[in-house]
């Protein structure tokens, strides 16, 4: 009977049999190894619900990891396919990876003004975006507040904004070059122009959408315009404003690459163009990834910032 149980542990009769063996096991030396296995089987039987939990956990883990991995795999697959069919004129993922490893092993080198590490190029672009975007925030956010608060100004500026907003920021580049007489300020000017609109518009909309209830509180308390701005307008506009900031940074990062292609100097956009002139396609592909990753990080940081400052709406 012992051997029968051992050979068919999944028999319908087995659980009781296993228990009986486990109970009897210590008395007979020969039964010991069998008993050990039998108790293990019994233990795993009782642990089944726990294991199911673990299974659910691992399933949700795989559902979180597998689809993005598949997406990435698809990208690499298509890339490899394109690379193979074009006869390596577009380098494949493996070679690009190797090139990336060499590039990122020394991202901060300087061999003259036109040959600098990718790190310097990214930092130069980020610096331009920061300056242009910062200036746009300094001008755009207060402008948005004022436009949102006063109907006259809103009607005055709405046609101007509607007219200028659809213009590609790059169309402003020659004006920037003309006025500022330099490539770098012109690029910053382009960033300024492209990132100011989302901030003005979103801030103004936020101000116009401040719940009337809050404004009634302000009116009953007869608060000063400054107090209204700091205690009521600003906190309730903040989520809208941060949306504007997020859109602005996204656009600025899109535009800087194009602007730098035109202005030259140091910067990730210039680097792409420079590598195109060198016919170094691997570096262009790497640049595309670097631009994407930096953009992703900017977006992620601003989303985090926005959620930290969004107040739960009070519902009665």
């Amino acid at each position, binding site marked *: 009977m012992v051997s029968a149980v051992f050979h068919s542990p999944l028999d319908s009769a087995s659980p009781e049999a296993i228990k009986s063996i486990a109970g009897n096991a210590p008395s007979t030396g020969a039964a010991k190894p069998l008993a050990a296995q039998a108790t293990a089987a019994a233990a795993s039987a009782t642990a089944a619900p726990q294991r199911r939990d673990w299974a659910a956990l691992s399933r949700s883990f795989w559902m979180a990891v597998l689809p993005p991995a598949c997406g990435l795999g698809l990208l690499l697959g298509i890339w490899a396919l394109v690379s193979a069919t074009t006869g390596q004129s577009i380098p494949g993922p493996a070679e690009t990876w190797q090139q990336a490893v060499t590039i990122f092993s020394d991202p901060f080198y300087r061999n003259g003004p036109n040959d600098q590490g990718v790190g310097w190029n990214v930092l130069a672009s980020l610096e331009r975006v920061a300056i242009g975007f910062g200036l746009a925030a300094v001008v755009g956010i207060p402008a948005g507040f004022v436009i949102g608060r006063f109907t006259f100004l809103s009607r005055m500026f709405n046609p101007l904004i509607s007219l200028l907003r659809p213009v590609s920021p790059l169309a402003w580049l020659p004006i920037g070059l003309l006025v500022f007489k330099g490539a770098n300020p012109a690029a910053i000017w382009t960033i300024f122009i492209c990132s100011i609109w989302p901030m003005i518009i979103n801030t103004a909309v936020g101000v116009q959408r401040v719940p009337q*209830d809050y404004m009634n509180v302000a*009116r009953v308390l*007869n*608060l000063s315009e400054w*107090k209204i701005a700091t*205690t009521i307008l600003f906190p309730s506009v903040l989520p809208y404003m941060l949306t504007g900031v997020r859109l602005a940074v996204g656009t600025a990062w899109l535009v800087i690459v194009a602007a730098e292609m035109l202005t030259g100097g140091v910067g990730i956009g210039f680097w792409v163009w420079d590598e195109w002139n060198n016919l170094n396609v691997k570096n262009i592909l790497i640049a595309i990834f670097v631009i994407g990753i930096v953009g992703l990080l900017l977006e992620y940081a601003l989303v985090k910032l926005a959620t930290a400052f969004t*107040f739960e709406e*009070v519902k009665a």
Partner: protein
Amino acid sequence: MNASLTSKFIEVQRVDQTFKTAKGLFPALRGIDLTIAKGEFVALIGHSGCGKSTLLNLIAGLTTPTSGALLCANKEIKGPGPERAVVFQNHSLLPWLTCFDNVYLAVERVFGRTESKAQLRERTDAALALVGLTHAAQKRPGEISGGMKQRVGIARALSMEPQVLLMDEPFGALDALTRAKLQDELLEIVARTQSTVVMVTHDVDEAVLLSDKIVMMTNGPAATIGEVLQVDIPRPRSRVELAEDPVYLQCRKAVIDFLYTRQGHVEKVA
């Protein structure tokens, strides 16, 4: 009720209010005449859309009348002001401020020029204690219940030591038990502070329990005051004892009679 009840404190004189809507002019109120004495508790009652809140907003100064005049303490009401505190229907607390800061905002506005920071804080604490919310002072409105929010709203209004307390269905959104509790608290607070109160309600029991005078409004459009009922029940009033009080029942019947028999359909009574 006391002797000062005879004096005029708030006067509403031949007030009309017409709103411009997409469909043209909408006459909300017509020919409103009302006098409220100092220390009096007045309830405005009527069916939905009869212009109760419109009248309250006029007294608050949040809107201006199309014609007619409103006076408070013999001065024309030109706009809203902290001497006429409003408890809003939906409490209107600022969600990014703690309960303490919500009340402090009002206290600072009214007493900030004359009193020290410590005194202002003391006033704020006192107002929160008055509504029994000392323990929730540092919580944000999102973290407390609807009844508690409404109490903070009342604390904010009371903290300004207003001449008039205007309440727009302050307990409308609350459950019956919480409402009863807050009504009792309000009775107590009003008795202590001797405030003049104008309260919009559509709860007959609430109106009779709380007020000295019930202003019953006819159905809109062009609503007006249909009837004014004096509630001659001595204070302090107890909810439990009133349940069998003949005057209470009589008043209650009069209001119900007005609302459901005479104003069951749209018509003018006055």
